[in-house]
C-alpha cells in the first residue's frame, strides 16, 4: 500500500504530566509520573512539563515544582470547578497546540482514563492504556509496556510516527521523586478563551461515597482464620486492615461461628477475590479457601505451623504466632509511615 510520510520528531519536545486532582488535592499518581517523566526527559535531554487544569488551584502549583517539573502550565478558571470532559479536553488541546510535547503521561484514574482518549482522538494520535513500564529511545519514541487480557499477557507498544505520544499509567507503579527544597522551575498561565469552556454536560450534584465495605473489589485484604482464638481478637485483624486501607475477611469456620458476616468469607463457597495484597492470619490453606484467593498479586501468610499448606501458596511464608507478630507490625506501621 501507500507509505505514510514521516513526521519531524524534533518539532515535538518535552515530557508532560497531566496533574490529576480533586478540588486541588493532587492525586499521588501525579508525583509518580513526575518521577518517571524526569527520568525519561533526562535520557533525551528535554524538559518536564506539568499541565494543571481546574478552579482555585493556583496555590497548589508550587508543589509540582518541588517534585521536579521544569514548567507548570496552569489554567485556573471557575468554569473548570468540576471535571467536565469537553472543557478539560479543550484546555488540553490548547496546551498541546502551544507547547507541542513529545509525550504525555496521564494517571490511569477514572478522570485520566476518560480524558486521555478524548484528547488522543482530537489529535489523531496513539494512546497506550494502563502502562506499567515506560522507557524512551534516543529518537524520543516512548517504549510502553502494558498488561492486557486481564493481566495474562504483556504487550510492548510504540507510537512511532505520531506526536504527541500518549500513555495512561497505573497508580503505585512508578516511584515518586523526593521533595526538593530548591525550585528551579516556573509557573506559567495557559490562556484559554471562555468560548472553549462550554459544555453539554451539567453537574447537578456531588455525593460523597461511603467507604467501600465489600471484599470483592478491595485492593488489600487481611484474613482471619481459626488461628484467631476469640471473637474479640478480630479487633487486631481489623486494626491491621484499617492501617493498610483494606478490608477484613475470613475462612468459613469463623463465618459458621457467627463471628464474621458471610459476605466476608473467601473460598469455594464464599467470594473469589483478587486483591493486590492479602495477608492471611492463622489460616491453614485448605483447597476450598485457596481457590478463592490464589490469584492475589502478593500473598503473606502468617501461621505458627511450618507445615501449613497455605505456605505453598504464599509469596511470603511467615512462620510466627500471629499474637506476637501482628501487634508488633501494627506498632511499626503506626510509628513508621502514613498509609497511601
Amino acid at each position, binding site marked *: 500500500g501507500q507509505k505514510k510520510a514521516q513526521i519531524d520528531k524534533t518539532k515535538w519536545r518535552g515530557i508532560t504530566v497531566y496533574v490529576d486532582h480533586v478540588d486541588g488535592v493532587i492525586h499521588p499518581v501525579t508525583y509518580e509520573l513526575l518521577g518517571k517523566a524526569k527520568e525519561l526527559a533526562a535520557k533525551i535531554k528535554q524538559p518536564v512539563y506539568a499541565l494543571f487544569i481546574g478552579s482555585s488551584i493556583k496555590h497548589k502549583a508550587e508543589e509540582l515544582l518541588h517534585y521536579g517539573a521544569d514548567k507548570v502550565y496552569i489554567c485556573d478558571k471557575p468554569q473548570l470547578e468540576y471535571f467536565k470532559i469537553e472543557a478539560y479536553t479543550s484546555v488540553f488541546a490548547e496546551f498541546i497546540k502551544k507547547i507541542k510535547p513529545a509525550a504525555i503521561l496521564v494517571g490511569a484514574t477514572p478522570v485520566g482514563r476518560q480524558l486521555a*482518549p*478524548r484528547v*488522543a*482522538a482530537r489529535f489523531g494520535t496513539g494512546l497506550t492504556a494502563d502502562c506499567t513500564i515506560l522507557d524512551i529511545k534516543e529518537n524520543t519514541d516512548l517504549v510502553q509496556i502494558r498488561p492486557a487480557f486481564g493481566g495474562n499477557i504483556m504487550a510492548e507498544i510504540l507510537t512511532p510516527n505520531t506526536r504527541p505520544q500518549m500513555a495512561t499509567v497505573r497508580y503505585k507503579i512508578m516511584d515518586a521523586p523526593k521533595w526538593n527544597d530548591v525550585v528551579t522551575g516556573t509557573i506559567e498561565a495557559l490562556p484559554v478563551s471562555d468560548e472553549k469552556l462550554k459544555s*453539554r454536560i451539567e453537574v447537578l450534584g456531588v455525593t460523597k461515597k461511603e467507604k467501600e465495605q465489600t471484599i470483592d473489589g478491595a485492593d488489600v485484604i487481611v484474613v482471619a482464620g481459626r488461628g484467631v482464638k476469640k471473637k474479640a481478637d478480630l479487633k487486631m485483624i481489623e486494626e491491621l486492615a484499617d492501617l493498610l486501607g483494606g478490608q477484613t475477611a475470613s475462612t468459613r469456620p469463623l463465618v459458621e461461628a457467627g463471628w464474621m458476616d458471610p459476605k466476608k468469607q473467601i473460598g469455594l463457597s464464599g467470594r473469589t477475590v483478587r486483591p493486590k495484597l492479602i495477608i492471611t492470619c492463622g489460616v491453614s490453606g485448605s483447597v476450598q479457601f485457596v481457590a478463592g484467593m490464589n490469584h492475589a498479586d*502478593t500473598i503473606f501468610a502468617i501461621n505458627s505451623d511450618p507445615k501449613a499448606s497455605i505456605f505453598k501458596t504464599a*509469596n511470603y511464608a511467615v512462620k510466627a504466632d500471629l499474637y506476637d507478630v501482628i501487634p508488633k507490625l501494627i506498632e511499626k*506501621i503506626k510509628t513508621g509511615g502514613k*498509609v497511601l
Partner: protein
Amino acid sequence: MKILVCIKQVPGTNKVEVDEKTGVLKRNGADSKMNPYDLYALETGLRLKEKYGGTVSVITMGPPQAKTVLYEAFSMGADDGALITDRKFGGADVLATSRTLSQGIKKFGKFDIILCGLQTTDGDTAQVGPEVAEMLDVPNVCNVQKIERVEKDGIVVDMDMPHDIETVKASFPCLLTVQKDIYQPRLPSYLRKKETMKKDIDIYTFSDMQDQDEMKYGLNGSPTNVQRIFPPVSDKVQEYLEGTSDELAAKIYGTLKQKKFIAG
C-alpha cells in the same frame, strides 16, 4: 428515543498463552463470545427502551463472524443491527477502531444515546467509548453506575468517581460507558432467538464510509504498534521468613513499604 449499543466479539477466555518462539498469541480454539461488559450496556439500553419507549440498535466492528454477537443481542431484545467489516479495517488500534465505528454509526442513523461497555476483556483499554464520542462530537460520561432519569433534552446519570458520585446531565445526543452491575443482564430468550435467527442486518464496508481516506483505517490508520507480546514475568518470589517476632514484623513492614502498600 433511539438507542445504540456498541458490542464487540472477544475470545471466549482471556487465559491466552503466548507462543514462546514466535511471540504470537495462541488463540487455540478459544471460541468467541460477546464482550461480557457489553451485556451491561445492552441491558441498560433495553431497560431505557422499556421505560421510555424507542428502539435499541446494536453495532459491531469485526471479521464477518462477529455478526453472531448481533444475533445474540437480538435474542436478548435488540431491534436491529449493523456489522462493520472489511479487510481494510484489520489490525486497527483504538484510534482506527473508533474512527471506523464512528463512521459506521453515522451511516447507521441518528441516535440519542450511544452505550458502550466499560472495557473489553481482550484489548482491555476502555478507550473506545470516549474516542468515538470525540469523533462524533457528542458529550460523553464514563463509569455510569446508575441511570437517574431521562428528560426531554438529555439524560441524568450517576458517574462513579474515586471519592464521590457525580450526578450529571448529558444533553442528547450523548455517549455513556456503563459499569458492570448497573443492571443484571437478562438471559437470551429462546423464542426471540428463533424469531430473529434469520433477521437481516446492515453490513458496511470501506465503500460505505464517509471518509474515504484509506490511510485512516486498519493497520494504516493505527498510530500504535504492538512490537511484541510476552507472558508477564512473575515477580512471585517465595520467601520463607523465620526469626524473632521483632525481626519478622520489621521484615513484613519493610516489604509492604517497598511494595508501596505503606507510604514512607
